[in-house]
């Protein structure tokens, strides 16, 4: 276990608590809460980076093991969220996203060792895993944003003007963030799919039947959903609730791939 892990976890917990407090309290002093939560999250991000760096120096790079991939995914997700906060300061998204990353990081550190995928340290393997993780991290931000959209939209439609309504960010801004995340994450995920396909074919001596695995099917489903979403956004102006639902479905499929690797190990990459 890396030495900064307890500190990282504590900082994530502080940030998470502050974001949740911000989302559940009245307006008074809440902006300050959100600001402090963001600072704590940035500190956790740095501490987490120190963990990953330490493990790299020890010879355990982020793609050597499913556990490390999970931790790296959590780190990238937080990085992606922090990057969005400069343009889209949406604390409610942080309140949902930080607990998810805590679960990912804890699962990575406390879960059983699964061993690394064969030849993960090759250029192709590194590219595939790195790009796929970055893509999923950005989709994670898009998915949480989509979940917030659905809640905010539901309240506006049902005319429920409770405390969460007041905290709900504007629908247009949420949809805009969703579109930008998908636009950024989709090319990364696409290149990851291509490199992954080539990698698997080379490792296992070719043959299309080698790709008939649950993880490849899930990845393809995620790719198709995000591709369809992008096309529909451009072609017919799909936005709002339906875009949010497709985003959640796509992220669910992408997360399924990670879950399969985590539960079954890297056998049959």
């Amino acid at each position, binding site marked *: 276990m890396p030495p900064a892990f307890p500190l990282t976890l504590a900082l994530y917990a502080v940030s998470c608590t502050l974001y949740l407090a911000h989302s559940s309290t*009245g*307006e*008074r002093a809440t902006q300050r809460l959100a600001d402090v939560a963001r600072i704590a999250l940035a500190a956790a991000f740095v501490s987490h980076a120190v963990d990953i760096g330490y493990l790299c120096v020890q010879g355990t790079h982020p793609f050597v093991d499913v556990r490390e991939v999970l931790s790296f995914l959590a780190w990238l997700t937080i990085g992606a969220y922090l990057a969005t906060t400069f343009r889209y300061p949406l604390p409610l998204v942080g309140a949902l996203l930080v607990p998810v990353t805590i679960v990912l990081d804890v699962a990575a550190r406390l879960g059983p060792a699964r061993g690394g995928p064969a030849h993960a340290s090759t250029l192709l393997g590194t590219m595939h895993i790195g790009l796929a993780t970055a893509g999923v991290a950005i989709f994670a931000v898009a998915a949480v944003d989509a979940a917030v959209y659905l809640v*905010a939209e539901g309240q*506006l*439609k049902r*005319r429920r*003007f409770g405390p969460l*309504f007041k905290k*709900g*960010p*504007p*629908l*247009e*801004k949420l949809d805009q963030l969703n579109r930008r995340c998908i636009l950024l994450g989709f090319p990364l995920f696409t290149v990851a799919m291509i490199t992954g396909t080539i990698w698997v074919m080379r490792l296992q001596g070719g043959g299309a039947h080698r790709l008939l695995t649950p993880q490849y099917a899930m990845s393809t489903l995620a790719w198709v959903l995000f591709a369809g979403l992008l096309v529909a956004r451009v072609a*017919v*102006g*799909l*936005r*709002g*609730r*339906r875009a949010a639902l497709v985003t959640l479905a796509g992220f669910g499929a992408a997360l399924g791939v990670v879950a399969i690797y985590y539960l079954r190990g890297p056998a049959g990459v």
Partner: protein
Amino acid sequence: MLVVTGLSHHTAPVDVRERAAFQEGELEEANRRLAGHASETMILSTCNRVEIYLTLPDPAGAAERGRRAVEKLLAEVRLLDAVVVGPHLYTHTGEDAVRHLFRVASSLDSMVVGEPQILGQVKDAFQHATRAGTIRNTLGRVLQRAFAAAKRVRTETEVARSSSSVASAAVELARHIFGDLTGKEVLVIGAGKMGDLAARHLVSAGAGPLLVTNRTFERAQSLAGRIGGKAHPWESLPQLLTVADIVLCSTGAPEPVVKREMVQRAMKARRGRWLCFIDIAVPRDVEAQVGDVENVYLYDVDALSSMVDDHLAERRREAEIAERIIAEEVQRFLVAERSLGVVPTIRALREQFSSVARAEVARTLGKLEGASQHDRRVIEALAEAIVNKLLHAPLTALKREGESDGLVSATRTLFAIEEPPASGTILPPLPPPGEGRGEGPLETGSGSGSGSGSSLGGTLEAGRAK
């Protein structure tokens, strides 16, 4: 002593307020006119209130004198007869006047409690009076504390953070959908007064351009002219729905004029862009099923009213917290003011003791013919030290207690100190121990719309006094 006389939405109808309101260009001259009647003056003139703050050196009958000065000013500058304006005037003095100013600056006395403009208006009034040279230390001190109190109320309560009218609720809902309203097109259907008001709110929130349509094109043109929009013929309504982001409906039509099919067609042309309907017409102008269309949000007058009611209840709770803050700030200010009121007594007491010591030293030195210069300085220092030691405890008590519990009066009586000169504080001087604190029969009113309780000073509200 501080005196405020004026009229507001609590006491005067809009036609009287309109006539009493000063133009911005008149304020400095009006302040100078008042300067002959008071040490300091400031005129606060907004669409909902006209108030004149004065400090008068002589507290005797201050309320009545302040009131007469204001009636004279309104008669001379605004040509408003005292008979017309008199019944609507209220007057507060001393502590009540301080509390009133703090509440006004904090928007607790506003027609829409928590509205943000009033603090800026009080600051503008302060600037006008400063330029006219009619504000000095006393009024300056109380105004600075009023600004600080208003800032506390704004930062420590939510009193200013929720919609309290149907029009402002419409703006808030639109913001929840679109965020920044800049550049969002607003379509006004119908030329009613409510649509006019809501459109103005949206424009002041940054929305625009404005499109107006009405069955009678001339009325659409008239409204468009008033609110800076563009009139369109009634037949173009379906096309207008494809470009507008926010639609305000306030026609008098007996049947809905916006149907689900019309909106569905518009949404295809809009490529799913969000559309917000604010329907404030009764009977409703928009079919209820329109709200089921994807990315369309429909709010009728009931939805808006329930939002306003929720917010008003919330504001009432926050206003209670704000009132406690005001009470604290008033007390803090009064304590500071009272400590200023003690200064003349302290000076007089020290001077009295020192003069006795000097006289006794001179008499003693007269008897010591062979005393050297050094001996003389030693004896003078001894006398000064005795005075300082004797006065240390009483002066500390005076500074600490201020004017509370009649300590200053008791000290003045005990040491036969004459009435100190006017200290320039906003409070009336304390009466000798055993006497009441009332100022006279005119100042026994029970309070005004400000809701202030009276202790020091008093309140006069002419309309109620009658």
